[in-house]
């Protein structure tokens, strides 16, 4: 028994030996609440596809940041990514002003175009003296390259996102739940919607390094969709979404450490397992409620 417990303790302590893994765990600790809260709005507003599109549309921004800085400058790539996300958000809302372009078409057109532009920029031969950009790191993330400097930047941006949401919580909830009420109360609906897009873009930018362009949407949507299945109140949904993201992130790091799987996949798959479990559980509860209700609903057979 003691041997067994000791083995588990050793296994759990494994990644913490040496300073290498600590900033990776810290990054997950920072990202989980930001993704949990922003993801909740994304899910409730049915904007999952939009979130996916924004993550992809960031690629040219990262490439331009890289080219301008002449190398992998975190600050330049961060600025480029943010700029690209904002251009994509504005482009999509401009396209869908016209009734002939459906919203999902507008999203598809803009994100594919920007993604293509990003690939075009990255596939050019690098100038002499500059290392070529590794596309796969951007696409699938490289949390194992996260250092303390990255963590502090993620934390600073993440705190700003959470403080803005806390300060404007009731207005953002009204704009998300009932845009008609927001209009009749004279809330600045367009500004609130745009603010939420900016917060989403910022969140994606700080999350990219950990989970990459392709799987970013899963880290935003899956924890929130899981929480939606099992909670009744918005604050609880945000809290549980954070817990799911945090647990999946920690599990993912252990799996990465011991099984040497790409971290983004190891983080996203536990999220999916949580969702599957919640889906099965709520389905089972629903069926049980239905079978209990049937006899009393038909008292005379």
């Amino acid at each position, binding site marked *: 028994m003691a041997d067994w417990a000791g083995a588990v303790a050793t296994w759990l302590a494994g990644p913490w030996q040496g300073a290498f893994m600590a900033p990776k765990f810290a990054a997950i600790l920072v990202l989980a609440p930001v993704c949990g809260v922003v993801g909740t709005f994304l899910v*409730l507003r049915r904007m999952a596809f939009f979130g996916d599109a924004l993550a992809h549309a960031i690629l040219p921004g990262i490439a331009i940041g890289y080219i301008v800085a002449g190398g992998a400058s975190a600050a330049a790539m961060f600025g480029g990514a943010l700029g690209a996300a904002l251009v994509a958000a504005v482009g999509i809302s401009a396209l869908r002003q016209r009734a002939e372009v459906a919203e999902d078409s507008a999203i598809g057109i803009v994100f594919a175009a920007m993604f293509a532009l990003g690939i075009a920029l990255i596939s050019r031969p690098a100038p002499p003296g500059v290392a070529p950009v590794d596309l796969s790191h951007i696409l699938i993330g490289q949390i194992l390259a996260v250092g303390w400097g990255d963590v502090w930047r993620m934390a600073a941006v993440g705190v700003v996102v959470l403080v803005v949401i806390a*300060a*404007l919580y*009731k*207005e953002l*909830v*009204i704009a*998300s*739940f*009932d845009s*008609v*009420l927001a*209009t*009749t*109360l*004279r*809330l600045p609906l367009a500004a609130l919607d745009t603010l939420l897009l900016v917060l989403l873009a910022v969140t994606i930018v700080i999350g990219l390094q950990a989970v990459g362009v392709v799987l970013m949407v899963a880290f935003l949507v899956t924890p929130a969709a899981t929480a*939606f299945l099992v*909670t*009744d*109140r*918005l604050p*609880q*949904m945000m809290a549980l979404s954070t817990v799911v993201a945090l647990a999946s992130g920690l599990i993912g790091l252990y799996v990465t450490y011991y099984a040497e799987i790409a971290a983004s996949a190891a983080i996203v798959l536990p999220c999916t397992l949580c969702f599957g479990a919640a889906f099965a559980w709520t389905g089972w509860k629903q069926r049980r409620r239905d079978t209990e*209700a049937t006899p*009393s*609903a038909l008292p005379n057979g």
Partner: protein
Amino acid sequence: MPLTPPILEVTDLTVRYDSRVALSDVTFTVAPGERMAVVGPNGSGKSTLLKAIVGLVDASSGRIAVHDHAPGQDRCVAYVPQRAGLDWGFPVTVYDVVLMGRAHRVGWLRRPGAADRAAVAAALAAVDIEDLSSRRIRDLSGGQQQRMLIARALVQDARLVLMDEPLNNLDAASADTIMAVLDDLSANGVAVLVAMHDLVLAEARFDSALLLARRMVACGPPHESLAEDHLRAAYGAGLQIVESPDGHHVLSDPGCCDDGHAAVIAPKMPRRVATGMAPPSHIAGPRVVDERERGSRRG
């Protein structure tokens, strides 16, 4: 000539959606405390009129003055939307939704205070759903949903309340509660415009009726504006007036129906009865009990 200035003044209002005329040439006024029924076939522009007044759609021409403000400029208007337009799966409780009506009074960067909580409690009591305060909105019946939306309008302390078909498909208890709320509002000088299908109720319980058919057919005291020739003009060839021992019945196919509602079949009371007393609410128009209400009655 009324002594008090009108709270709402609509002059030559026309609303177009793209090139289609949804509503044209509407002119009327509403006095403080007045209760006006907005009636007409489906697709006749009832919802469009309310949305134009609250500023959700733009007037193509004409003028809407609320308390001497242009639409969208005055917060003294509360709007109760049709239930179908809301996301009932949103994870919020009845209390949360009613409190949303206070957002502009609470103010930016502030949390609701004691006055806001008291206003919510009073509104929930007025529509008789205090016990549902912490219930999630997806678990409400149609009547409970409607009462919640009315409570949310009440906490706004509006001087003009617009309700879009609040009485459709309601159980009798909810309809009675809503009529009682309308009485309270009128007594407090709040003007109410209610889009509705029930001509009997319009005649019995409203100060005035506005009859629409994509244009204004008539407006005035219900016994004048809902006269037979006006109804024929609004409801068209589908209208049949059937004499029977207990008065005459107006039967109507959905005239210019284009939004898929059921046909209106409204028993019309004889004039002498309609002017003296309210009809019992169980005969108040067509009623479809939805599945949720059936479920809750069984349980």
